């Protein structure tokens, strides 16, 4: 008999033994070492054990009787410490064993990030029965909390299991979306939503700082200061092949023990199988390929010919209710095409990645019924050209007519209590009731419910509710959608973001049924603005969704250089500021210095890599960005007013400066410019601005909706204010109303023309309480945005972005 020694009684070696005993029951005398004090069990079923859906006994693959029947000498609970290849012995903790053939099947070790406190009791990995039992025990204390570090497959299964056992669970994930290696952002968003629904907290882009506790883990602290109570911390951040034995024995190594297609290492009598091997540069972490390896290794040991081949892999998450599937390759390669299907009503998302005539990758969430069929197409490299148009609908549709994605699904998916008309607080249910009561036109619904009777921006949504309810009985007027990524108009999208409380881009893409993975250059800047305007504290502004000028905080010029324009509050400057500007112009070789039409100075022709440095110089002189590049507050032009002018009635300069200091930094649908003139002679040209104030003896005349660009239009009188405070409050409320309601890229005059000045007046002049609420909301938003972007971007780390990533002209060619 051949003396076969096996190191590691895990899932891979277990399979090898099964094949060997089946094919040649008498051929091998097996000694089986295992560091764990037990034999082979189905490791992937630890998750059901953790959640309580299965017991350990139910997941044992080989019990004592099985080992006995096959004459296996079991040395469980004994770690192998070395291999002596010259003497052909394996050195265990309790003694040596001689081998003719040796299998190394030591699996992997969980990776532990050495955060401060990572070695405290109560910090566990998720790999074996001991870890699982430690978690079950921690969950035994009522009200206990768990923090899971790592939002991959293992981390989420641990989180779901702990939650089912009643713990308070938070998952920390360092990337922007969960399971980032298997899922794209939308599927990651849906998964997060489902987990949150079952009470699991999820923090993405989380930067863990330390694990703390007195003698035992008590909490996890993040870089941003957040502190999360924790009775147990599960670190599930990845695995590393357990390959030290191979290394120490001098076998040929890569990142793990290198094997050939027959699972042979560089020593002809030593084989390796499972997660401890590297084949053709690849490592392994799922069982499907390990079972293939096991089969090949058994045949090799039996002297038969076989070769291991890499196959496509697929992933499913073993958390009940989170139906997801991912297979194939999204990451690399050229000439690829995406097909996206979204059904917001049912929370379904599917994406196929096609290369040439082949399906190469698939991600699905919410409906994975067809996943095996898609996986088959990927594995077999089936030619899908014939069914390309209907492929996404799955096998049932092949040969039949395909259902197109319903453009109104997003509205159909709204619950009855979702608010459709923000002005009058009318919900979808109210509208449905009025339709049931016979209101079959927009006007009729408007008359009965007041929905869309005020600013009118929700008319599109009311029409869609009518269309869904009445079917062909209602003729939809055709409004222009935002872009080709969606059927919805800007106004629809704005209302739906509020009604459905959508607070992230993936939420908008999915819940509103976007047709592209992440929008385009037309819709993304708009969505980014809507999200930050509606949820200033929840949504993080995304610079990658902004046009170049707003991302780089400078206006790009036709030659690729930039212009730099510091604020001059209300057009007032000082000799020191002027000197600093002159010095900066000299130091950075600025070719053109120009006085602008907005009462300040423009430095034109600055190189991109000089921007952080010139900003820092101007900052040092007390100046901040003039935002000459934003859809935001630009300038407040003033005249000299009562301070100097013999006609001045009020302090127009002072009021202009106050307004500029309140409004600066805020983002708006389009740019906002103000003028404050000290008397009706109007030297500050206030009557053609978005907001223009004319000071008079009795107070302030506040005009809005003027224009002097492509259109020329005089302001219309919004209100007269008797005090400066009142004037300021009216201006802020107007700007906030504009921010909350206007379509992206509508200047104020275009928006007012749509909603009517009367409605604007009702909101902010007649209704003092509403005016105060608008001012409050503006202040909340400014608590985030009223800061100098130059100062932020001139800091060393953000400033790196303005430089080359690499300079290959400095590298020597090989």
């Amino acid at each position, binding site marked *: 008999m051949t003396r076969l020694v096996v190191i590691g009684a895990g899932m891979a070696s277990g399979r090898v033994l099964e094949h060997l005993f089946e094919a040649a029951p008498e051929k091998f005398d097996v000694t089986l070492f295992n560091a764990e004090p037990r034999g082979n069990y189905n490791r992937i079923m630890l998750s059901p054990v953790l959640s309580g859906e299965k017991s350990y006994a139910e997941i044992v693959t080989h019990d004592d009787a099985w080992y006995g029947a096959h004459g296996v000498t079991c040395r469980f609970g004994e770690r192998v410490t070395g291999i002596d290849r010259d003497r052909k012995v394996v050195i265990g903790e309790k003694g040596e064993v001689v081998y003719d053939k040796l299998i190394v099947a030591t699996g992997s070790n969980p990776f532990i990030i050495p955060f401060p406190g990572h070695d405290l009791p109560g910090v566990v990995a998720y790999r074996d029965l001991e870890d699982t039992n430690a978690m079950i025990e921690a969950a035994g204390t009522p009200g206990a909390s768990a923090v899971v570090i790592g939002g991959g497959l293992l981390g989420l299964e641990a989180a779901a299991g702990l939650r089912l056992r009643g713990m308070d669970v938070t998952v920390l994930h360092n*990337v*922007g*979306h969960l399971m*980032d*290696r298997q899922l*794209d952002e939308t599927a990651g968003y849906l998964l997060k939503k489902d987990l949150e629904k079952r009470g699991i907290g999820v923090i993405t882009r989380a930067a863990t700082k330390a694990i703390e506790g007195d003698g035992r883990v008590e909490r996890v602290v993040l870089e941003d200061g957040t502190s999360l109570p924790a009775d147990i911390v599960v670190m599930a951040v990845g695995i590393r092949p357990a390959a030290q034995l191979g290394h120490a024995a001098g076998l040929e190594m890569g990142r793990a023990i290198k094997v050939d297609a027959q699972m042979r290492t560089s020593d002809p009598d030593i084989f390796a199988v499972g997660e401890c091997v590297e084949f053709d540069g690849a490592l392994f972490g799922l069982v499907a390929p390990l079972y293939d390896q096991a089969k090949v290794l058994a045949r090799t040991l039996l002297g038969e010919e076989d070769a291991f081949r890499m196959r496509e892999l697929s992933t499913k998450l073993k958390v009940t209710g989170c139906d997801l599937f991912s297979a194939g390759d*999204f*990451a*690399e*390669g*050229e*000439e*690829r095409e*995406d097909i996206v299907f979204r059904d917001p009503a049912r929370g379904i998302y599917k994406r196929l990645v096609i290369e040439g005539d082949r399906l190469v990758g698939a991600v699905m969430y919410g409906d994975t019924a067809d996943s095996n069929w898609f996986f088959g197409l990927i594995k077999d490299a089936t030619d899908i050209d014939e069914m390309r148009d209907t492929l996404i609908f799955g096998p049932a549709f092949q040969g039949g007519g395909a259902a197109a994605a319903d453009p109104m699904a997003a509205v159909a998916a709204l619950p009855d209590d979702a608010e459709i008309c923000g002005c009058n607080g009318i919900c979808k249910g109210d509208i449905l009731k009025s339709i049931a009561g016979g209101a079959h036109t927009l006007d009729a619904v408007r008359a009965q419910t007041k929905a869309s009777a005020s600013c009118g921006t929700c008319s599109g949504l009311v029409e869609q509710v009518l269309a869904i309810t009445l079917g062909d009985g209602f003729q939809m007027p055709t409004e222009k959608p935002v872009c080709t990524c969606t059927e919805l108009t800007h106004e629809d999208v704005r209302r739906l973001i509020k009604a459905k409380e959508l607070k992230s881009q993936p939420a908008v893409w999915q819940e509103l049924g976007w047709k*592209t*993975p*992440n*929008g*385009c*250059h037309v819709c*993304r*800047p708009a969505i980014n603005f809507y999200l930050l305007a509606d949820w200033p504290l929840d949504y993080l502004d995304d*610079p*990658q*969704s*902004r*046009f*170049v000028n707003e*991302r*780089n905080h400078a206006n*790009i010029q*036709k030659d*690729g250089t930039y212009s730099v324009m510091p604020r001059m509050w209300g057009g007032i400057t000082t000799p020191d500021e002027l000197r600093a500007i002159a010095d900066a112009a000299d130091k950075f070789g600025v070719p053109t210095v120009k006085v602008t039409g907005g009462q300040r100075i423009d430095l034109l022709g600055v190189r991109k890599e000089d921007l952080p440095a010139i900003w820092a110089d101007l900052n040092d002189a007390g100046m901040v960005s003039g935002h000459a590049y934003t859809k935001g507050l630009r300038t407040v032009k003033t005249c000299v007013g009562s301070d100097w002018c013999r006609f001045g009635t009020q302090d127009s300069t002072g009021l202009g400066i106050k307004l500029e200091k309140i409004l600066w930094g805020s983002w708006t649908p389009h740019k906002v410019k103000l003028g404050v003139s000290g008397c009706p002679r109007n030297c500050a040209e206030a009557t053609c601005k978005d907001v223009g104030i004319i000071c008079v003896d009795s107070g302030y005349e506040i005009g809005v909706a003027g224009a002097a660009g492509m259109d020329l239009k005089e302001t219309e009188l919004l209100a007269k204010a008797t005090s400066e405070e009142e004037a300021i409050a009216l201006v802020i409320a107007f700007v906030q109303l504009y921010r909350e309601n206007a379509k992206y890229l509508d200047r104020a005059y275009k928006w007012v023309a749509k909603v009517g000045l009367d409605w604007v007046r009702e909101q902010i002049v007649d209704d003092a309480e509403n005016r105060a609420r608008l001012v409050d909301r503006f202040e909340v938003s400014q608590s985030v945005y009223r800061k100098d972007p130059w100062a932020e971007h001139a800091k060393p780390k953000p400033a*790196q*972005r303005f430089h*080359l*990533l*690499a*300079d*290959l*002209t400095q*590298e*020597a*060619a*090989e």
Partner: protein
Amino acid sequence: MSWIDIGHIDDIPLRGARLVKTHMGCLAVFRTGEAEVFAASDSCPHRGGPLSEGIVHDRKVTCPLHNMVFSLETGEAQGADEGRIETFAARVEQGRILLDGTLIAARGAA
């Protein structure tokens, strides 16, 4: 093919780009996904717009000057526009960005 390591994936913002200087001029490395990059010429064939400053969506970029859209996979202009940008092999491995090594050697080429 030899590969050169030019930096960590997080040096490029998601749906952003950074420039790499080579003997053939500046090329842009775009990050389209958590671990997906493409390398292409930085210069728009229309009027030389810096593509690295464009908005990146799906596997495409929109030129910041006049909104031509290019596929980062093929380099072809999308829609009705005509034109093409040169693309280069790039990939991500273990969080590192790797570019086609011949870019170092190509002194004076093109």
